[in-house]
């Protein structure tokens, strides 16, 4: 143990002068961005250590675009408003594959709970809502990387996407907001069922209805009335609409889309935060 705190003995592992003073707490509004940053950094570090998930998750969207997209482009069965079908569906597949990541994010929080990691985080000066917001944005970061991969695949398959940086920024925002919502949905369910297996089952059960009950694969106009109603309350539809408008330049409702996504994300964060206490017990 170092007796003289000032002496810079870099060799010694026991040197602890910094550990004598507690850090100065961040005040008020600066707390939330700091916690969000911490959670996102952890997510990126994990992805850097284990990239297999990145590769395996690229397979499904590639298949959707390659097989479904190219086939339906030929059939011309779906009215897409003039764009090739594969172009039409590409934003849908981006949104879908990002949603798949977010909807299973709750499994990670249950795993962290079972491993005792969550408990330790809850004993740090991190309000529960800040922890959930951090996790939601960390899921957003993960989804964003997935979205980049799918955009690259789509571009390779010849989809005519925009490269306008401002529009791509909008795409990133839409992906992060929607993933924040879906991951909070997942963490909310996690707070209710508190079991990885059950959450996995529920996740499997709701992803396909969310996907098919949206405008990802076909425009709302060809849906039967009841499905149109489903699509209307499905945040995925608003995400797809925004992505389509931004990436392809097709007519869309960007203002409404972003408003719905932001409100959904905020509600999701509130719901998941209020149930986080159940995971701490």
């Amino acid at each position: 143990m170092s007796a003289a705190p000032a002496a810079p003995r870099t060799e010694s592992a026991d040197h602890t002068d910094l550990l004598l003073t507690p850090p100065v707490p961040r005040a008020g509004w600066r707390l939330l961005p700091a916690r969000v940053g911490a959670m996102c950094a952890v997510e990126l570090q994990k992805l850097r250590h284990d990239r297999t998930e990145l590769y395996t998750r690229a397979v499904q969207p590639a298949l959707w675009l390659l097989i479904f997209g190219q086939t339906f482009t030929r059939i011309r069965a779906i009215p897409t408003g003039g764009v090739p079908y594969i172009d039409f569906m590409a934003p849908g597949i981006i949104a879908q594959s990002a949603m798949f990541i977010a909807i299973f994010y709750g499994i990670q929080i249950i795993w962290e709970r079972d491993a005792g990691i969550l408990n330790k985080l809850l004993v740090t000066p991190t309000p529960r809502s800040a922890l959930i917001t951090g996790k939601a944005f960390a899921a957003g970061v993960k989804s964003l990387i997935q979205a980049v991969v799918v955009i690259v695949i789509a571009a390779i398959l010849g989809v005519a996407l925009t490269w306008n940086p401002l529009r791509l920024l909008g795409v990133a925002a839409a992906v992060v907001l929607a993933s924040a919502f879906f991951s909070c949905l997942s963490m909310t369910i996690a707070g209710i069922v508190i079991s990885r297996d059950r959450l996995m089952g529920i996740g499997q059960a709701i992803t396909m209805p969310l996907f098919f009950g949206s405008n990802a694969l076909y425009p709302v106009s060809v849906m039967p009335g009841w499905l149109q109603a489903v699509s209307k309350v499905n945040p995925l539809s608003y995400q797809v609409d925004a992505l389509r408008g931004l990436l392809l330049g097709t007519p869309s409702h960007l203002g409404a889309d972003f408003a719905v996504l932001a409100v959904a994300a905020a509600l999701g964060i509130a719901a998941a935060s209020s149930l986080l206490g159940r995971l701490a017990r």
Partner: protein
Amino acid sequence: MTQPEEQDPGPGRTTDESTGVADGGAEGVADAVSCASLSYAFGDTKAVDGLDLAVREGEVFGLLGPNGAGKTTAIRCVTTLLPVPAGKVRVFGHDAAKERMAVRRLLGYVPQQLSADQGLTGRENVALFARVFDVPRRERAARVAQALAADRLAGTYSGGMIRRLELAQALVSAPRLLILDEPTIGLDPIARTGVWEHINAVRAVTGMTVLVTTHYMDEADQYCDRVGLMHRGRIRALGTPAELRRGLAEHQGTDTLPTLEDVFRAIAGSGLDDTSGGGFRDVRSTRRTAHRVG
């Protein structure tokens, strides 16, 4: 030193008071931890049942007791992980139910279960805790390095290394109170000594208070200034290890000084009792974690 508090805007939660000034007495006078008739029940199980406890500033306090005595539950109330449904819990004068952020800033916590994130390196594990305790970026690397020696993926660590890593996580924020729930469970004798020596080395410099639970009576005897023997949710005996041993000797009228283990047996009873069931779950899950990460 008094820390300013942040607000906890969690929905449906009481908001922390906005000043850091403790209402429970002046600086240095307040106990590090004080529990007054703390009770906590899981359904019908009264895990903690009217616990009164005072941990003095600067001491190493050992909370002992059989499996299921309520040690972990009491600690989880002190750490703000569990609400305080009945009674009062204060940490350096801050109410654990109302000033949760202020309490957390003063705490370092190592839970019973071995818990490091296996997907991160040791350094990243500690850095995360530096970040969430608001260690500024320029100081972070140095602080983490001082808290930690080894660095590789935590998934490859042994049980003893994980505990040392967890200690580093808990100490990186320079806590005034270190709470350790069975820090040496499942560790070999050398690792156990290592953990204790590390704690004592840090304590010698920082003067922090330590609240620890353990089932190893020899450890409690050697390293704790005072111990409280808990049984069925309440403290049944309190004092320095020597006092408790002498007390038992007087009670039994023996000349040879009994060990702390004898004291434990006298108070907790030798056979299995009805409250001993639940602890098994914790022990098992610790073993499982040790197996998985180690």
